[in-house]
């Protein structure tokens, strides 16, 4: 009592006592056992330093085992904070509360874990409280690693001459003195956001999820680690390698959006759509690699993925070389080895599940193994050939990944601050000078649909940075360009012809200080390139008898797909009262009012496999406005001018066929309204627009001048209609046809979307969230179904990623014939990304909205009642 010598201290003691009484409310009553934690202090707790299979060194460890036996022997530092939240830093910047841990997302938000009744963070290894402490410990390690990666990236991008060709996409200020203007090392939207980790999501069965948008009680992004009700003691949070994989998705999101702090409406890029695509596979491969960065083990999921689901993955062809006594052992089939012939190469292993190698499967996770193996092999190359430590080698590789993602996800379209701020003005270019993803207004659509981050774009961009930094600087004498190209080829990824030093900006290599760096074709042994001409859509009556398309219009699978897509964020809401699954009649035909899934039965006519086959039903520049209506351009003599094709030369009309200029999304008069001429009818506020020519240079802000010059042009929906009249049959736009039918705007599909409504999809509309289809690979002389199905006697089963969804207006007269002009390409295509007629330089951005880099696929059908 002697220390309460005056009133102030008495009051202080009183307050402390009161607060402690209140705080104990959040302290769990169970879960801690004082005898197990006698040797730890008040800042410590015990954790699982790895998953139980690794800690037990046995795959036979039971899913019901008492996890106390695996807790770290000594206490480890947890936190001096009152709650499980931590700060993240990047040089002198700090994101307060960057990560916080909670139990279940359905707990009310104020319920936060504090120290136990003994005043430390030690909890019973089988308790939910322990999962939170464990998640916190591993979150802190991962956050520290991410800071380290971004600091390494900034330092490296600032090295002498590092700014120059190729220009770093890493955000920086002009003068490389101190890091400025980089809030994007963490989730940022006016302020830093908190990533909430829910260590036990009881509603989430057999799953884990990374959510960039706030969900449930989180106010920022979150990770939810699920459970499996069949195994009550099991939780995904017990496996750090899986948790690190989820944090790897968070890293991809950060790297992808590093240039997007100030983009329109705070939109953020994403890597991958809902269902299968290569961008999603790359995202999974990088997340696996991030797990390796954290655990040091080229293997993940020994506990949470292998024990129950037999779905673990490794990152090397030769596990024994790195983990000779691994409790599960090498998952790969014997053909897979770390020789040039045996690498996990693109094409051969796109549908390969090492856990069930005889059953081909199309999932992002397994296709992503090719990227994770390639990144791991590149890391080993740096360790073995450049005398780098493991950590330095990892830092270099993940830095190149970060540069690559920054470029793919760039919604500012400027690609490089240095390029934009110094190089472009000095070389006489206007600023802003768009080099990437066309222009801000369409950058999101470009990077997710038209010029998507597939294996071609990812590997070519990664290789550009590797070549610059490793081959030409850091490992000048020990790794040659050919060495690296041969490694790429071992993985079947030497599918580009130049390093695209000048980006996708111009027809000539005038943006590069060193010209275009070409790939040595002698290094291309395993990688195959195929021309797009070998893509074919069978037509009725073709000699091989293959059907043109599979049409699904039942009332079971279509609602399922719609629900799944809408739940995960795709736009597939039907137009009110004009179409709906209630009209679906399950006759495998396209009928008025239906919502149908269409799988185009693409045939690979070549003698080589095609990988990453993509069928785009997105709007593109295939029509030209003449007078009141758009008319279809003629490609490959269809349609003929006598059949209604647009004129190709008349300058009095707007736009062009296949030349698509960029457009900015601007508010030059600062009235708070962003202006756009979204359907390209030329009725715009002239003072509001920036127009770019095909080289990305600003034409000016004068809309009228741009219009006169023929620059105004807009992508148009893919389907148009056959119009039969007494003496002639012509192909016309849907708008023209519906005007003949006297249908008003409100009778048109999509009329409720005032941003994107286009009467040229009044009668038949590709649903915006499902208008492109993906096939992981199609073998030589086969269709996708023939490729993936081991039994050719049964009817094919398709993934929803193979289909596009069409909405059919109920007012369409039966008998109406449509032609939908899809565009197709694939990843190992020799004329879909680089222009053989132009030194193999990549096509410039606007070309990806036109016909040139694609095979045009005409899907013609008649609507049947």
């Amino acid at each position, binding site marked *: 009592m002697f220390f*309460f010598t005056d009133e102030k201290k008495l009051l202080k*003691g009183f307050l402390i*006592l009161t607060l402690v*009484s*209140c705080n104990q*409310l959040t302290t769990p009553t169970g879960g801690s056992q004082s005898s197990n934690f006698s040797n730890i202090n008040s800042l410590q707790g015990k954790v699982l330093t790895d998953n139980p299979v690794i800690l037990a060194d046995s795959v036979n460890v039971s899913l019901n085992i008492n996890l106390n036996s695996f807790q770290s022997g000594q206490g480890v530092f947890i936190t001096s904070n009152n709650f499980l939240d931590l700060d993240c830093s990047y040089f002198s910047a700090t994101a*307060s*509360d960057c990560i*916080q841990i909670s139990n279940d997302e359905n707990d009310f*938000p*104020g*319920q*936060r874990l504090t120290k136990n009744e003994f005043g430390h963070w030690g909890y019973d290894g089988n308790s939910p409280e322990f999962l939170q402490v464990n998640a916190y410990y591993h979150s802190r390690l991962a956050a520290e690693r991410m800071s380290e990666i971004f600091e390494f990236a900034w330092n490296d991008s600032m090295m002498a001459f590092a700014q120059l060709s190729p220009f770093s996409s890493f955000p920086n200020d002009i003068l490389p003195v101190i890091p400025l203007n980089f809030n994007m090392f963490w989730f940022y939207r006016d*302020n830093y*956001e908190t990533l909430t980790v829910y260590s036990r999501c009881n*509603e*989430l069965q057999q799953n884990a*999820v990374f959510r960039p*948008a*706030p*969900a*449930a009680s989180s*106010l*920022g992004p979150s990770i939810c680690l699920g459970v499996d009700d069949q195994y009550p003691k099991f939780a*995904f949070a017990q496996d750090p390698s899986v948790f690190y994989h989820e944090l790897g*998705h968070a890293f991809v999101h950060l790297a992808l959006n590093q240039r997007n702090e100030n983009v329109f409406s705070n939109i*953020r890029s994403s890597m*991958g759509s*809902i269902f*299968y695509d290569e961008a999603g596979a790359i995202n999974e491969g990088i997340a696996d690699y991030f797990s390796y960065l954290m655990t040091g083990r080229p293997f993940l999921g020994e506990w949470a993925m292998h024990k*129950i*689901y037999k*779905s673990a993955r490794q990152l090397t062809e030769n596990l024994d070389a790195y983990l000779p006594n691994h409790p599960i052992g090498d998952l790969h089939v014997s053909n897979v080895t770390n020789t040039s012939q045996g690498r996990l190469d693109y094409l051969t292993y796109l549908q390969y599940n090492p856990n069930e190698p005889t059953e081909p*499967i*199309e999932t992002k996770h397994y296709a992503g193994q090719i990227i994770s193996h390639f990144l791991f092999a590149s890391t080993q190359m740096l360790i073995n050939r450049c005398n780098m430590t493991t950590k330095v080698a990892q830092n270099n590789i993940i830095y190149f990944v970060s540069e690559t993602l920054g470029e793919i996800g760039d919604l500012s379209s400027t690609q490089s601050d240095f390029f934009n701020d110094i190089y472009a003005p000095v070389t006489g270019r206007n600023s802003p000078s768009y080099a990437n993803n066309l222009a801000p207004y369409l950058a999101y659509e470009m990077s997710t649909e038209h010029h998507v981050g597939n294996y071609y774009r990812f590997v070519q961009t990664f290789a550009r940075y590797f070549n610059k930094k490793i081959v030409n600087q850091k490992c000048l004498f020990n790794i040659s360009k050919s060495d690296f190209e041969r490694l790429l080829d071992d993985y079947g990824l030497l599918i580009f012809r130049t390093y695209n030093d000048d980006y996708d900006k111009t027809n000539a290599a005038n943006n590069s200080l060193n010209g275009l760096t070409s790939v040595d074709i002698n290094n291309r042994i395993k990688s195959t390139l195929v021309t797009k001409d070998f893509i074919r859509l069978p037509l009725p009556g073709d000699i091989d008898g293959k059907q043109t398309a*599979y049409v699904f219009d039942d009332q079971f*699978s279509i609602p399922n797909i*719609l629900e*799944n897509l*809408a739940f995960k*964020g*795709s*736009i597939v*809401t039907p137009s*009110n009262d004009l179409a709906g699954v209630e009209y679906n009649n399950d006759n495998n035909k396209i009928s008025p009012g239906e919502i149908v899934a269409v799988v185009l039965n693409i045939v690979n006519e070549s003698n080589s496999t095609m990988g990453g086959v993509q069928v785009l039903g997105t709007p593109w520049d295939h029509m030209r406005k003449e007078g009141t209506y758009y008319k279809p351009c003629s490609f490959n003599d269809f349609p003929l001018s006598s059949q209604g094709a647009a004129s190709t030369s008349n300058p009095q009309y707007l736009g062009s066929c296949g030349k698509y200029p960029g457009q900015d999304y601007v508010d030059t008069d600062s009235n*708070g*309204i962003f*202006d*756009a001429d*979204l359907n390209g*009818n030329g009725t715009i*506020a002239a003072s509001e627009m920036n127009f770019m020519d095909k080289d990305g240079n600003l034409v000016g802000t004068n809309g009228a001048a741009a219009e006169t010059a023929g620059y105004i042009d807009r992508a148009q929906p893919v389907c148009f209609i056959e119009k039969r009249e007494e003496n002639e049959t012509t192909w016309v736009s849907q708008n023209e046809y519906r005007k003949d039918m006297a249908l008003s705007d409100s009778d048109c599909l999509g009329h*409720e*979307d*005032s*941003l994107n409504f286009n009467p040229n999809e009044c009668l038949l509309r590709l649903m915006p969230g499902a208008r492109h289809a993906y096939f992981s690979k199609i073998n030589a002389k086969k269709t996708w179904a023939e490729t993936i199905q081991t039994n050719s006697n049964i009817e*094919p*089963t*398709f993934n929803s990623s*193979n289909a596009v969804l069409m909405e059919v207006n109920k007012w369409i007269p039966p008998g109406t014939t449509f032609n939908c002009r899809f565009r197709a390409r694939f990843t190992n295509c020799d004329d879909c990304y680089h222009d053989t007629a132009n030194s193999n330089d990549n096509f410039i951005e606007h070309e990806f909205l036109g016909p040139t880099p694609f095979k045009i696929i005409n899907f013609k059908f008649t609507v049947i009642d």
Partner: protein
Amino acid sequence: MKKYINLILIFSIAIVLGKICFQFFISNPRHEQNEKLVKIETPKNFRSLASNVPALEIQTPLKKTEEEMKAEKPLRKWQKKAIAKLQTIIKNADIKMVPEKVVKINKDGKPYTFQQVIVQIQKPGYSTSSYRALVDSKTGAIVKTWDRPIYEDFNGQGDTKLVWKGSN
């Protein structure tokens, strides 16, 4: 001696207050107050979100009292329409649209207003799905989405299947 008596008194009061505090927390259904008291430092982004959005439109899974429910502003028309549209394809789901900001875009010389929202969908057997969207203020149509979730589906065999049964 007097000092010791005072001390004992003060400690007793502190313990009683502590218990009252405990009772208050347990019995009071206004969990928002729990949050404010337990988590003393409010995250910055909460302040940001709250400053942009009328408080009653931040829809969280918190349980509310009957009085609060009555006092709550009704959903706006565009919210109702947008939620109703999603409910036609996502059955048995609790769908919320949390407004973030208003975006105006001029098209063909006419200004259009859009709501930037966070869509949150809870279905039995799933965790909450969430993403950002632009919603047409007039019609409730979703016109753009981003920040979509990434699910692992550890036991999955790929996407939803379309089984061909042969042409009818």
